[in-house]
């Protein structure tokens, strides 16, 4: 084979060494980890010649590999969580992770809301828990190198079972608080059983001064007639290299609504892999990305319509200031049997600074003839006429810009059902705008 990478980069070598020394210490079956790592090693860190990573070169991004984080002391954890503010105003069941480790002390297992069960992943892996069979709900995600790395190194996480309606949102709070750069790999599995519903909040924060390397995977199996609302915020520190994956398999007549708001990290890539596996299901995936300085953020999305009559809507909004780079890659796949699919994907970007870059790659892959699919992509500046109009009414330029940007991004936030969460996200946007003026 010609494309086997013979020369390893220092980062690849470091990863191989890290895996060798960690694999027997990590909980659970070594075999499945080794398989995933072998798959990863066969191709190495993806670079710009690998189509799916054309715009986010991980070989270049990983100059060195940070050591995997150990378990924090109780004090460290307490301090870290006290400082975590993202979506703090929402009443929710807190499921916190510090430095990639689940803080089980913070959860009162005896007083969980009705219809909710939580199993720590570390224990589950060690005891070969029966729910482990539900991991990897989207089979083709296993071909993805970021996912492979997570499977190889995943040290902790939780498995959540939702058996009926859960009224209180579940907040997965990820905080990396180490002084020096650490790597983490967490895995969360959420199984929402037939007819059940839940709101998931997911926030990621880290200390500003260190180049942390989190790689988090959230997996969702949503049964028939379920309703899952998912709000994710990337508020990582300014030097963090954040990789994340949401892999969701959704049954019939279900509703899944996911939004990812990106304001943090030096480099980030959020991958959404959605498999619509039952008829008449409704998927919405939105993204709001705000970038400045030299930030780089990649939103990658693959939606496979695997059943009749499903509807998917994707709306991604990106604002790029200074010399930042935004990436959107979206692909809608409709195989032969997914007739009556209705898929619409839109990516819109605004470049504010002189040196910004936006790369859009919206794809359609259609094999069924009775479908309606469309995608659109735009890229440009704020509307000059509107700016002028607002300024003529007395608004200073920055304020006028802020107003227009808020309206632009707001369109993608409208679909957040939880009102408090939506307000908080609008607050995040406002905060970002204030910081730039």
């Amino acid at each position, binding site marked *: 084979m010609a494309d086997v990478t013979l020369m390893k980069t220092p980062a690849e070598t470091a990863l191989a060494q890290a895996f060798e020394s960690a694999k027997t210490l990590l909980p659970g079956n070594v075999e499945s980890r080794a398989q995933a790592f072998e798959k990863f090693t066969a191709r190495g860190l993806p670079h710009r010649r690998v189509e799916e990573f054309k715009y986010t070169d991980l070989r270049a991004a990983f100059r060195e590999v940070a050591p995997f984080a150990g378990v924090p002391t109780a004090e460290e954890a307490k301090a870290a969580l006290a400082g975590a503010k993202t979506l703090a105003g929402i009443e929710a069941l807190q499921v916190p992770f510090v430095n990639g480790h689940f803080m089980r002390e913070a959860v009162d297992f005896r007083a969980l809301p009705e219809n909710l069960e939580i199993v720590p992943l570390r224990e589950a892996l060690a005891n070969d828990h029966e729910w482990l069979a539900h991991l990897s709900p989207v089979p083709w995600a296993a071909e993805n190198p970021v996912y492979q790395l997570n499977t190889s190194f995943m040290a902790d996480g939780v498995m959540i079972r939702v058996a009926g309606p859960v009224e209180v949102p579940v907040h997965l709070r990820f905080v990396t608080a180490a002084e020096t750069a650490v790597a983490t790999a967490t895995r969360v599995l959420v199984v929402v059983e037939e007819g059940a519903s839940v709101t998931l909040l997911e926030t990621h924060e880290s200390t500003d001064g260190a180049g942390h390397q989190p790689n988090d995977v959230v997996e969702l199996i949503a049964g028939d007639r379920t309703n899952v609302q998912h709000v994710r915020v990337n508020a990582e520190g300014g030097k963090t290299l954040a990789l994340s994956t949401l892999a969701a398999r959704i049954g019939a007549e279900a509703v899944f609504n996911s939004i990812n708001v990106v304001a943090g990290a030096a480099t980030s890539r959020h991958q959404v892999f959605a498999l619509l596996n039952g008829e008449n299901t409704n998927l919405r995936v939105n993204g709001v990305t705000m970038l400045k300085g030299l930030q780089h953020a990649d939103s990658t999305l693959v939606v496979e319509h695997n059943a009749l009559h499903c509807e998917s809507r994707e709306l991604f909004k990106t604002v790029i200031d200074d010399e930042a780079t935004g990436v959107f890659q979206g692909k809608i796949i409709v195989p*032969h049997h997914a007739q009556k699919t209705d898929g619409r994907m839109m990516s819109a970007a605004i470049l504010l600074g002189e040196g*910004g870059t936006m790369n859009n790659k*919206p794809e*359609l892959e259609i*094999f069924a003839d009775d479908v*309606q699919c*469309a*995608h659109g992509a735009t*890229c440009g*500046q704020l509307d000059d006429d509107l700016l002028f109009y607002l300024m003529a009414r007395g608004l200073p330029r920055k304020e006028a810009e802020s107003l227009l940007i808020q309206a632009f991004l707001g369109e993608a936030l409208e679909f957040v059902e939880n009102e408090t969460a939506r307000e908080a996200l609008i607050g995040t946007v406002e905060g970002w705008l204030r910081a730039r003026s």
Partner: protein
Amino acid sequence: MPAVQETIDQVRSIDVDQYKYGFETEVEMEKAPKGLSEDVIRFISAKKGEPEWMLQWRLDAYKRWLTMTEPAWARVSYDKIDYNDIYYYAAPKKNPAPKSLDEVDPEILKTYEKLGIPLREQEILAGVEPQSRVAVDAVFDSVSVATTFKEELKKAGVIFMPISEAVREYPDLVRQYLGTVVPVTDNFFATLNSAVFTDGSFVYIPPGVRCPMELSTYFRINEKNTGQFERTLIIADKGSYVSYLEGCTAPRRDENQLHAAVVELIALDDAEIKYSTVQNWYPGDSQGRGGIYNFVTKRGDCRGRNSVITWTQVETGSAITWKYPSCILRGDNSRGEFYSIAVSNGMQQVDSGTKMIHLGKNTTSRIISKGIAAGRSENTYRGLVSAHRKATGARNFTNCDSLLIGNECGAHTVPYIESKNASAVFEHEATTSKISEDQMFYCQQRGLSEEEAVALIVNGFVKDVLQQLPMEFAVEAQKLISISLEGSVG
């Protein structure tokens, strides 16, 4: 529009054998030894009587090509090509460089007659409005067999001749521009072409001249196991205008044949080039046997200010199409346009689109692509629009629509949109749809047969692009589209 009716007639009159250009011409050919080597390249160069620099250029390309690997990123699949199992040069034995039509082998003249390509100027003049005259360069396998209206064009200062002739007669012009748009090292197939190209057209329009007639090249692959590697170079000097048409056919054969062409366009200040293609190479049979591999590099360089390059293509033929006619928008205020209809049926595979590279200020581009997939074919639009740092005020509008007929084909859209300039405005939209049963019933209720109804609706779907073609070509293209979709319903 009478063309619709003609389309319908055409569809009616066709029997199962849809490809009507599949006949073969019996002429004695002289060929280079099979396979590719320095010797074969020297053979070709010697046959063409080329100067030393040209031979060296070819040999350099060949050396480079030996180090390259075939690209695999396109959404097409085919058995490995054995590059040593191809003839790289085939020319009619009898007088390969005829001075006039009287010297051309009558069998070849008959071929073009059958294909409906007029090679005798007096025939073209008879009964046709002078404005719509078309000058033709007819390329038969590896050589140009006739070029019409050369004299008249010469009076206007226009050079229109086989490129092999131009290498001898205008070596400075050729040397100045050849390989400046598609460098020798550009890609696997372009590099191969640089090493072995045999013939093609050369056009030069002097400053301020509006070419007095449409220019066209008609490519015919006839010989078995022969690749066609034509090279076309068109230069529109300052303030000039030219419209150029290209047509292609080949006999039906069970094995695949390679066609790896390179087309370079150069538009200087205020110049405009319109390049239209109706590509109807043999597509293979319904089981996917045979057909042309059409691996083509076409690129235009809007080198001057206010220059314009328009690509219009109707792609109905070939087993595999791999083709991305592109524009480099270098000159300030320059404009690039790409209009495409790609029809695939049977087992055809199309991976085609364009690149619009915005380098200069206030450059604009427009992409309209209509893909129609039927049978068990795969039809991919792949396109790149990019604005570089200095491309202030760049504008692009892209619309790519796909239509699927039947449930065994695939239609894919893979656009890359890259902006590095805040003032660049890019808009892209794409849709995929089908012909609705209700539309079909409505047409049938009015008396149209199923096939007529499909032809009508498809013609409506592709209308925006057809309008870009010169009239004669539009009618032919419309027919071709219907023929290509023959048997796709019911």
